[in-house]
């Protein structure tokens, strides 16, 4: 059998979001793989420039359905730095608490997805059932299962009561027991180990060279964790271990994630025990002084970076988001090459990709002329107005949608 090209994506059951992977196969072996981004561009960064900082919290939170707290915290940290305010330590502790709960829910979700990708649906069902426990906790604490809306500039919006603390501790005990079971399953179940060990290798050197982040890097033995390297919120005071693994394969990435769950339980217990008294918010002026700031946050998937430039008004001049998936995507084709077709879904899933968070731009490829061009904001706006016009909806009368702006 000669070489065949198999398109995995943009629509494929292995992918939960659209993304293009083009695999060249020789039999079942992957000879080369190319990744194509950009199916999910939503123009969030540009939209941020037309909203106030407070409105932006809610927009930024919706970059990702899973690490929503990640993005909102990361953005707010930038704004707080620009405004020169320091949040109270109670607020910092609550941010840490929600951040860790989010990590638990994200890692349990990953475990289920990984199980599904290797055809082990029982693991999928079990871990997602346990994930409901932490989702319920988040709903109890913040009112929402996802997109918690607990952050605000200068602090947090909701307090944690002593009954809630009791509930959280009880659930965390239950989750810890389940996680011990998952560690056992992941390291000892024969078919799982057979499917994961040695798959999608990424050596320490390659991980550093390709700029891998989060569990993908830590599984290769790179001790890189923003919570330790550049502590934010309450992480400077909380003792915890940075989990690394020497396996540098998909199994290692799984082990790092489940072991990180155990660390998260430790952090949550510590935070709840020593929750300091104090106000929830400090006052921040509506107009943020001019300047620029960058902030880092250890998302469940790796390091998330936000950049905010302010011009002294109520709205930011520029917001830039670098989601962790972008950092990990560059290592994907390296990991796919030389592997089997059967391993492709799990290798892609092992970086815990979040594609819609990643896409920042659209490139249009003209197949006939074989040329590539980029759509800037104005062109995109004009295109969308025309698109709707052709279908009988005329938006051109609305002033701020016109090409010349407002």
């Amino acid at each position, binding site marked *: *059998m000669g070489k*065949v*090209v*198999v*398109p995995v994506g943009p629509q*494929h*059951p*292995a992918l939960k979001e659209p993304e293009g992977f083009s695999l060249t*196969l020789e039999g*079942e072996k992957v000879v080369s793989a190319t990744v194509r981004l950009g199916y999910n561009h939503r123009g969030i960064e540009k939209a941020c420039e037309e909203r106030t900082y407070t409105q932006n919290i809610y927009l930024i939170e919706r970059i990702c359905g899973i690490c929503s707290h990640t993005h909102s915290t990361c953005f707010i940290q930038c704004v707080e730095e620009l405004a020169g305010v320091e949040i109270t330590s109670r607020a910092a502790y609550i941010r840490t608490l929600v951040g860790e709960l989010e990590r638990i829910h994200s890692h349990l979700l990953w475990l289920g997805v990984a*199980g*599904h*990708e*290797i*055809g*082990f*649906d*029982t*693991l999928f*069902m*079990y871990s997602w*059932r346990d994930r409901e426990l932490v989702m319920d906790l988040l709903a109890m604490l913040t009112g929402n299962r996802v997109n918690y809306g607990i952050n605000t500039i200068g602090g947090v919006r909701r307090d944690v009561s002593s009954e809630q603390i009791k509930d959280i501790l009880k659930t965390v005990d239950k989750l810890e027991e389940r996680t011990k079971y998952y560690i056992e399953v992941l390291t000892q*179940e024969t*078919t*799982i180990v*057979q*499917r994961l060990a040695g798959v999608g290798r990424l050596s320490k050197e390659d991980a550093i060279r390709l700029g891998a982040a989060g569990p993908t890097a830590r599984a290769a033995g790179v001790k890189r964790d923003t919570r330790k390297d550049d502590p934010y919120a309450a992480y400077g005071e909380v003792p915890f271990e940075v989990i690394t693994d020497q396996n540098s394969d998909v199994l290692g990435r799984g082990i790092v994630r489940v072991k990180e769950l155990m660390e998260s339980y430790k952090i949550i217990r510590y935070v709840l025990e020593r929750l300091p008294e104090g106000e929830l918010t400090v006052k921040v002026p509506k107009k943020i002084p001019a300047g620029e700031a960058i902030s880092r946050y250890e998302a469940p998937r790796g390091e998330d970076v936000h950049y905010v430039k302010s011009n002294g008004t109520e709205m930011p001049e520029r917001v830039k988001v670098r989601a962790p998936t972008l950092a990990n995507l560059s290592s994907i084709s390296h990991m796919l090459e030389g592997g*089997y*077709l*059967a*391993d*492709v*879904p799990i290798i892609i899933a092992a970086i815990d990709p979040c594609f819609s968070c990643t896409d920042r731009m659209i490139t249009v490829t003209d197949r006939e002329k074989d040329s590539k061009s980029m759509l800037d904001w104005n062109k995109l706006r004009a295109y969308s107005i025309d698109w709707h016009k052709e279908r009988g909806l005329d938006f051109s009368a609305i002033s701020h949608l016109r090409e010349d702006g407002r």
Partner: protein
Amino acid sequence: MEDKLSLFYILIFPGFIFLSLYGLLIEYVDRKLYARFQNRVGPRWYQPLADIIKLASKETIIPRQADNRMFRWIPVFALAAASTSVLYVPIWGTNSASSFDGDILVVMYLLTIPTLTFFLAGWYSKSIFATVGAIRALTQLFAYEVPLLMALLAPALLANTWSFTKMAEFYSHHPLYSVFNIIGFVVAIIAVQGKLERVPFDIPEAETELAGGPFVEYSGRLLAIFRMAIDVEMVVVASIIAAVYIPFFYNAVPVLGFLIYVIKTMFVVLILAAIRSIFARLRIEQMINFCWKYLAPLAILQIIINIIAKGVLK
């Protein structure tokens, strides 16, 4: 009279109608057990039938580049082959609808046809996912077929016959002899997962890589026929395993005998569902290694044991 009886056998019992209904029931039990093992609620009893009706009422789409005639006929072949094979398998009592010395091989051949149709279906779909799935289906066939056949031949050796009916008769007279066949039972149960393309051997379909493999282009009525064929195949396979390895408690009273048959096949389904829920899908080369390294030697061991047992006991 003879002709009418044959028609009854083929169309009603144990032929097409019985097989279809029992196949749907078995699919329900399988899905329900699978769901319960996974901590889910699972479907209602009529869900498999509802699925078939829904599929049958949907539009059938045939890809432009696919071979139109083959594309339409292949599912029918699968269903026909699977339904025919049941005629030689004892359902209740030790008698099957028809039997001759050598029907074991005929049934095995007939049961290979559905797998071949999966290959052809994938091949003639002319879709890249279907083609890869088709090649996997054929590759897998070579791995599980030999251990499965050997595992079925070993009990036949001991019973000194090549027909299912005589084999069932022999073991019902000498029930203790079937203790020898335990290894064969294990081998057959595992190999059958490959034949039915279920986890851990659902490699050709592999939803997350191949999006359904050979069936990726099938829709509507044609897909419904394929699903029916797989259900029927499951009934036949469960009946064979029950007849060969669990040859006890045959009863001449029709209702009671049938109940015993149901219990036996459901027991087989229980084991199949349990296997499906505790394993991850293997890679194709791991599956082939496993079948040739472990299953085939075990099946040969079974044959040797039975040859020795036959010599000693005679």
